[in-house]
């Protein structure tokens, strides 16, 4: 209980390194990432936006059951994936498909849940990406456990755990931050504050000066960052990851961003927010500002822009292609993984289902 509270509080305003006009803004603590890094991030943003667009089309075509878009939050998605080393772990939510794909997971596998197939279509160990969590904040204690297990074995793994502004109200958010702080788990908690939890605006979610201010109550440093500025995100999240890796414990990072689309395709955002608000945020788009900054510096050439677009086209093509095929459901799959080996009770139920199908086939 000797932590200096002042060192735990976030900066007064969100960290910005490139502003909405694409102008660089010098910062006393955080340096601008290199042009190369930002050009790579740019390609990531373009791909993420394309993924969001394509997925929304696929929903309308009935190829996906539901899609929670991260349109407008692409800078957060890409930065979350880019600051991690291969051995690190990412803990995503249902809204973080773009981050999952940015980390290397096959997009069709990543969309398995949202197309109404099995709940996690990828191997979590392959890219060290946990299954997408739907019950809010419940993945955060898991992230702490993964980090602790790695540290017990002397590994230098860091875990980046994502959640939304709404999820910070859940008890599991509190418990996870507290466990991480007390047990000094190398976890970076990254809150994408997109201003809404479905229809509920931030002001109904918290009365705190910022969500990043929640850190001090756990002895965890909090930081807030412009969530539409990928440069600031890379700098702030990168520093948090390295701090955690060096054994200094967890950190809380809040990104101020905006959910441009409705909560999911099933939601009607017109019921609870004005178009003007959305428009104001569109002017702060993460891609436009980065493009203008890099173009002005000459780091982003028309060729590089086309390369990024083509890469995004290929991604979209792979999504269309992969999601156009429906594998038939195999009822044996229902029972295969409830336990390492099925109980006698499950065997009995599997036989019942198989019998039914056999008889159906005979008819």
């Amino acid at each position, binding site marked *: 209980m000797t932590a200096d509270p002042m060192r735990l509080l976030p900066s007064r305003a969100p960290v910005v390194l490139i502003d909405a006009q694409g102008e660089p803004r010098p910062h006393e603590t955080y340096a601008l990432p290199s042009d190369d890094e930002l050009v790579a991030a740019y390609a990531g943003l373009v791909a993420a936006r394309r993924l969001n667009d394509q997925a929304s089309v696929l929903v309308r075509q009935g190829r996906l*059951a*539901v899609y929670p878009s991260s349109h407008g939050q692409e800078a957060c998605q890409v930065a979350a994936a880019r600051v991690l080393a291969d051995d690190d772990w990412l803990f995503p939510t249902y809204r973080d498909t773009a981050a999952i794909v940015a980390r290397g997971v096959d997009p069709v596998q990543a969309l398995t*849940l*949202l197309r*109404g*197939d*099995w*709940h996690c279509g990828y191997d979590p160990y392959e890219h060290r990406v946990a299954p997408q969590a*739907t*019950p*809010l904040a419940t993945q955060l204690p898991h992230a702490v456990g993964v980090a602790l297990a790695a540290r017990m074995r002397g590994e230098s793994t860091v875990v980046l755990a994502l959640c939304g502004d*709404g*999820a910070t*109200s*859940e*008890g*599991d958010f509190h418990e996870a931050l507290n466990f991480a702080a007390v047990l000094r788990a190398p976890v970076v908690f990254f809150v994408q504050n997109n201003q809404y*939890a*479905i*229809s*509920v605006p931030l002001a*109904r*979610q*918290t009365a705190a000066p910022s969500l990043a201010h929640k850190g001090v109550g756990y002895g965890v440093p909090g930081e807030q960052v412009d969530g539409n500025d990928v440069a600031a995100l890379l700098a702030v999240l990168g520093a948090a990851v390295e701090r955690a890796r060096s054994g200094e414990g967890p950190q809380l990072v809040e990104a101020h961003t905006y959910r441009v689309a409705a909560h999911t395709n*099933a*939601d009607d955002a017109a*019921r*609870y927010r004005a178009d003007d608000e959305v428009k104001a945020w569109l002017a702060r788009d993460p891609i436009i500002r980065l493009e203008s900054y890099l173009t002005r510096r000459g780091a982003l050439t028309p060729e590089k822009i086309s390369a990024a677009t083509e890469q995004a086209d290929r991604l979209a093509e792979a999504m269309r292609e992969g999601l156009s095929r429906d594998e038939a*459901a195999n*009822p044996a*799959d*229902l*029972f295969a993984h*409830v336990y390492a080996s099925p*109980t006698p*009770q*499950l065997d009995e*139920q599997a036989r019942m*289902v198989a019998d*039914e199908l056999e008889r*159906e086939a005979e008819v």
Partner: protein
Amino acid sequence: MTNREKLTMAQALNRALRDAMAEDETVVVFGEDVGQLGGVFRITDGLTAEFGEQRCFDTPLAESGIVGVAVGMAMNGMRPVVEMQFDAFSYPAFEQVASHVAKMRNRTRGRVGLPMVIRIPYGGGIGGVEHHSDSSEAYFAHTPGLHVVVPSTVADAYGLLRAAIASPDPVVFFEPKKLYWSKEEVDVTQAVPPIGTAVVRRAGTDATLIAYGPAVPVALDAAAVAAQEGRSLAVVDVRSLVPFDDETVCQAVRATGRAVVVAEASGFASVASEIAARVTERCFHSLAAPVRRVSGLDIPYPPPKYEGFHLPTVDRILDAVDDLQWEEG
């Protein structure tokens, strides 16, 4: 003059909330997205506009907090009606429900009752992704101190919700999501069915199907098919799991000598188990065959693509009926 109107179950639930709020100003509605949005299923649509933010409001996103705050309000003169957004999202509130909602009256020797309702959209069949199709009634029905109610018709949805709100005891109110858009002509001015009563939805002489909630229409379909095949099946809609109407259920079973319990939830240690056990205890010597259960498989709720295998179907019910040892009867 007739008061009959065609309503969906969702509309009937909305109407019940509205009517209860209009009649009694201590009725307050809160939860996630229930205010301006009107709830993700629109069950609370228009309530904030009509009654103001004091009476129907959004809370921070925390189910234990929602139920816990409702406990305090109910302790202090209000009749809170809270919504859990989906079935599986009531689990974070389980501690509050099991340790407080269910026990406050008993703990205080009747001095502090909790007239509150926890509404839970529940069950499958709507193509929901993981955690959006659970049937959790067993957890609550097993917990003494709660009333547990599940309507299957539009009229009951209205009537039972009114009864739940009027009840001096806490009621866990399950709303079959699959039936939200089912339509029926109803007269909401009609008498409210008392909590604790089952109802015979279809008369029959050969065997009795005992069902509740979303399984009731499936059971009725099965009975219709069976009738074509020359078998007469009665269908009892339990509708109140706690208290349980032994009389109505057992009377139907005794009359037919055979019974199948139908429910969506996984079968092991479920409400269906209870019904099978208690019917057998009470009607043993009238039974020509053991009471069979057709329930959800003992697996985590599967993805949309697979839910057809998991849920009770007409065929599965008829198979169970066929199994009732007719030869030996």
